[in-house]
């Protein structure tokens, strides 16, 4: 369990090199999220202090940009692209398939904290559309079948003996 003082100390360590830099707010938030996985309230207070703004402002920026999270997320972050190349190639159905496979909706995390599901504007892999990312790995040319196969099968109530 990470305590509040740990969070503050870790945050200060991570952002110390950015002290005095112009426009340090976003880089600081990115660095802290990289380290902690999300931005806890205490971290936002520390970052605000460094950047010379209130924690309110930090929170405002954090909720504006898709990259930042104010809640802890699963070990594996699934980001389904919904840019126009991907949506033309059926990203919506990919998303539905994953929602069904994991039994969570966009923005949610599985109870075992293994997977979080989100959508992103464009991951720049348009030539591989529809595409998604699981943590750093880009997976493209998805089909509903391929998307389903990426996740452990839910135990089906009946007819589970396929093949």
């Amino acid at each position: 369990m990470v305590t509040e003082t740990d969070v503050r100390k870790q945050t200060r360590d991570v952002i110390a090199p950015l002290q005095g830099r112009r426009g340090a707010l976003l880089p600081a938030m990115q660095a802290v999220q990289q380290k902690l996985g999300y931005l806890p309230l205490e971290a936002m207070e520390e970052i605000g202090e460094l950047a010379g703004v209130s924690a309110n402002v930090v929170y405002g920026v954090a909720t504006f940009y898709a990259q930042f999270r104010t809640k802890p997320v699963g070990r594996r972050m699934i980001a389904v692209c919904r840019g126009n190349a991907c949506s033309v190639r059926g990203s919506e159905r990919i998303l539905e398939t994953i929602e069904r496979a994991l039994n969570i909706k966009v923005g949610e995390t599985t109870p075992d904290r293994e997977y979080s599901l989100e959508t992103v504007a464009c991951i720049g892999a348009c030539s591989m559309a529809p595409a998604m990312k699981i943590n750093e790995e880009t997976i493209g040319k998805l089909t509903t079948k391929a998307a389903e196969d990426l996740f452990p099968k839910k135990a089906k109530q009946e007819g589970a003996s396929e093949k």
Partner: protein
Amino acid sequence: MAQSNSKHQILVCQGTGCEASKSAKINQALAGEIKNAGLSDTIQVKATGCHGFCQQGPTVIIEPEGIFYTGVKVEDASELVKSSFVENKPLERLLYHDPATKKAIPLYKDIPFYSLQHRLILRNCGEINPEEIADYLARGGYTALKKVISSMEPMQVISEVQRSGLRGRGGAGFSTGKKWEAAYKAKGSPKYVVCNAGAFMDRSVMEADPHSVLEGMAIAAYAIGASQGYIYVLSDYHLAVKRFNLAMEEARKRNLLGKNILGSKFSFDIDISLGAGAWVCGEARALLCSIEGKRGMPRVRPPLSVDAGLWGLPTCTNNLRTLASVPLIIDKGADWFASIGTEGSKGTAVLGLTGKIVNNGMVEVPMGTTLRKVIFDIGGGIPEGKRFKAVQTGGPSGGCLPESALDLPVDFEALAKAGSIMGSGAIAVMDEDTCMVNAAQGFLSFCRDESCGKCVPCREGLPLMVEIIGRITTGKGKPEDLSRLIEMSETLMQGSLCGLGKTAPNPVLTSIRYFRDEWEAHINEKRCPALVCKELINFYILPDKCQGCGICARSCPADAITGGKRMVHVIDQSKCIKCATCLEKCPPKFSAVKKVSGEAVEVPKEPVPIAAGAATK
């Protein structure tokens, strides 16, 4: 290391697409095979950035011949090396095969995808190792920067760019020369150059040829008198960031970046600013807010950002592809550049071919090339023999143009006239299976989610418009909804500060303009002609085709299908979630699942034995 001409090079594409197909391992495997064959002295294996033909990836090119291998796998490495360099004949099975004639085309310059292109901005992409500055120098890199520093006054550089007719590649198409002149004349110090590298095509260039961007930024900085530059790129674009960092390091070592560049009084350096995922930050003023560490929101003009941009100081923001064009203009002259393209749009357009198109990838054509040539001759047309329906140019807020618009030239004016935009250069092709109402809703929802919320018509109007279209797609539309949507679109375009709000209605307006009958079918007949809108379609299992195999019932995520061995299966319409899994899973030899909209299909209410099903064929 200079390479003698007798040497061969194996270029392994490591763009985003090919890299996701493990092309780094292919590179290693090929290098290993070359070493084992004792050919390391004469043959060099080299990683390159994206060569554009992503559909055929991972691609490998043998130079100097230009032999083009497609879909290469790690296990092909030994055969490829043996065939190409021991037996001296291309490995037939990995060559590109013309889809029509089925004939192999060994050289990439003969493949229509490449032969119809005019690669200026992409001149080095896929040809050089982006991590080696020597490669860029060997192809004439940094000569333009040397030329401007040693022999040109800033105003001379600006008037050369102005004469070339170069316009911003980011979307708005503003004259680059004019922007530079305004930034040059602006009072305040220091001045900034900002490179906007937000789009997929920008990322590819950054990964494949980072030095051309760096050189373009340095020339811009020299021209306007800036000492600091920023390149704004999404934090997700790891490879682009890594390669650009490397390029900057190499350039600093050679005094092409940093203090007193090439011994002159001109000093200039660059920082990478990592975007945090807000589409609105493609808009120049929102982008500057983001670099300053604020929420990315556009500002009221004036003041223009060339006068008061980053931290209130003069800032010149250019798209990456605009900047990558600059070294060529300086090298080859404004007249040469102006000879390419159309009256109002000079030079070339880098286009990202996506959607329902055979050749997905990134291409570059002279401005004025028709959409038909881009989609059918270069892009290879529509896959699976489907019919073309619409093309959206410029990104999610571009217009959707119908078949009758295919002979339009790709340039700023012609696309604007048709109700679309040049935008980012994205070309998203839609086939007959696309519902234009549903597509319009999708694009509009994207803009709704990405709206920064500053201007009321954008913040409040977009959700309402999405809601109205949502009504139409669920069969609750009213005839007056169309005029209401058009009216709201006009308000949105007039009442929004930035490009997002001004262009967001494009897909809706063009969809209504060109595909009105489809909207009317949804509203008046409660029918989706393309069989897409879920509330308006139904799935039925045809009793004369079902063989009772049970695959559909086992796959159905909603447990909506009942049946049994040798029984005609039946879908419970009240449970069906219209996911189409049954349609996909039903074996093609049966093809028993039928999707319909607005028509009733006669099927049994309960599972019945197959023989008892109507008229077994």
